[in-house]
């Protein structure tokens, strides 16, 4: 099913964070870009087919002079229909880079965790010190740096852990976004001028029958 190709060495090691790898494939240019977090920097590697490394660079979250660089929590390539953005998130906020040309667009002062794009909108979960469980939706215009917060969805009481979305085009397809939180709750949403919460599904409390425990002697 899968074939292992040549490994690509990174200049620095990967931080022990969940989902610490973002991949952007550009078949038109025959390139694949990889993004990995290492401490206060994001390492970006471009590779040709067969894993031949072409270029490596490091990005830092930009800060005022004299302020120490924040740790990056996630680096993520976001493919939108009309532009590609690289997102860096840290506990101090979210920063964007355009693929070409580079621009810095500070948006929010609260901490965010970015999850996937969705047809012109982004879903971004809020990851504050309190992990409030809100889902932030940003509007990304086709051109220009004005990324604005368009909605805050309240549906979760604990930290949001994942978001999945698919553009609902069919008539019988009602929902197009599902969010999950730490307590096992799933929230099902429908997009529109405003997002609408359709259902809540409590997912915790189900597991396989536990195996027979092994009995051991001694301590």
């Amino acid at each position: 099913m899968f074939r292992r190709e040549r490994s690509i060495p990174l200049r620095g090691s990967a931080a022990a964070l969940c989902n610490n790898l973002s991949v952007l494939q550009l078949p038109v240019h025959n390139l694949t870009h990889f993004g990995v977090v290492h401490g206060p920097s994001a390492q970006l590697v471009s590779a040709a087919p067969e894993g031949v490394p072409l270029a490596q660079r490091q990005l830092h979250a930009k800060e005022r002079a004299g302020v120490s660089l924040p740790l990056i929590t996630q680096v993520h390539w976001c493919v939108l229909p009309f532009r590609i953005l690289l997102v860096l998130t840290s506990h101090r906020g979210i920063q964007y880079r355009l693929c070409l040309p580079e621009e810095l667009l500070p948006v929010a002062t609260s901490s965010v965790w970015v999850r996937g794009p969705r047809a012109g909108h982004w879903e971004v979960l809020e990851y504050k010190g309190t992990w409030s469980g809100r889902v932030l939706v940003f509007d990304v215009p086709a051109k220009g740096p004005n990324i604005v917060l368009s909605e805050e969805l309240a549906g979760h009481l604990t930290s949001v852990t994942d978001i999945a979305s698919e553009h609902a085009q069919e008539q019988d397809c009602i929902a197009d976004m599902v969010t999950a939180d730490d307590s096992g709750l799933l929230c099902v949403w429908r997009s529109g001028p405003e997002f609408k919460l359709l259902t809540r599904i409590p997912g915790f409390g189900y597991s396989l029958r536990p195996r027979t425990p092994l009995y051991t002697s001694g301590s």
Partner: protein
Amino acid sequence: MSMRTLPLLFLNLGGEMLYILDQRLRAQNIPGDKARRDEWTEVDRKRVLHDIISTMFNKNFIEELFKPQELYSKKALRTIYDRLAHASIMRLNQASMDKLYDLMTMALKYQVLLCPRPKDVLLVTFNHLDAIKGFIRDNPALVHLVDETSQQLIEAYGGLSAGEFQLIRQTLLTFFQDLHIRVSIFLKDKVQNSNGRFVLPVSGPVPWETEVPGLIRMFDHKGKEVKRTEFRHGGNYIAALKEGSFELYGDRVLKLGTNMYSANRPVETHTSGASKNLASQSQQSIAPNPLAKEELNFLAKLMGGMEIRKPSGPEPGFRLNLFTTDEEEEQAALTRPEELPHEVVNIQATQDQQRNQELARIMGEFEVTDQPRWSASKGDDLLAMMDEL
């Protein structure tokens, strides 16, 4: 960066240091009546631990420690442990001190990395504190001091959210990033590979409040379950039986942070893997640190609260060797790479006359006797003393 990481880093590294020193002192133990003047006895061992613990948990020091602040650099932290290790009659030469510090940092890195939940780093800290109380259980005043620190931990960290613990975890792991020193006790137990990376277990209890994986359930948009499938993950997980206690006393459940050294297991490090890391570390030390000045101020303030007891009377400094033989220690001292951080450090900082006098006064207060390296007079400023490290 989390501003609440320093107490956890300091207390856990201190705990590991005490485990290692206790084990080495026991290994070199000589029965009291047979001991020569320069050999270790049980009484000496207890005294060394007692002195270090009372310095570590000094009230003023702990108060400074718990103030929200950024993590110190590796050099600054190493200086604190140099001081701490010499807060007793024990003396370590540089090679042994290096080895001690390597062991401490790799052990804590292992513990933080393998914590099931970020919050469990607090249980690791409680494990260290519980063991420390065991070392000094015949001294109620000291036990009380340690209990007070535990209480402060509960107050400072008890109410933090999962997100804040995640940030603390990330700050700690960034501090340990790229350290791959091989420790023979880890290699023997197969928790570390020969390339220095730790092995992540695929069996055992899942984190507290987590399900055992293996089941996929499908729902329709109305929330009705429509299908179930099982999948094999190749691991051997079981449900967590109970949560560790975050109270002053209690069953911590987690074994990370307990004393893994015993008198029968010799503890060694292989430092051949360290030279590769030093190349990247020395790059860091050459670039001037813009926060160096701030750091030195914090450091001096912190150590100003550290009460170092000077050995009374004409006692010799008891030397502790962390290697198996004296010859090994000498060999290690000779082959220590040049770029080790305690060589001359160029720190760009302004010469503030008044501040340097204040810093020098604080440093002077805990200058210990019989240390030929510190032959500089008490009037020298802090930066000059740092340069000698």
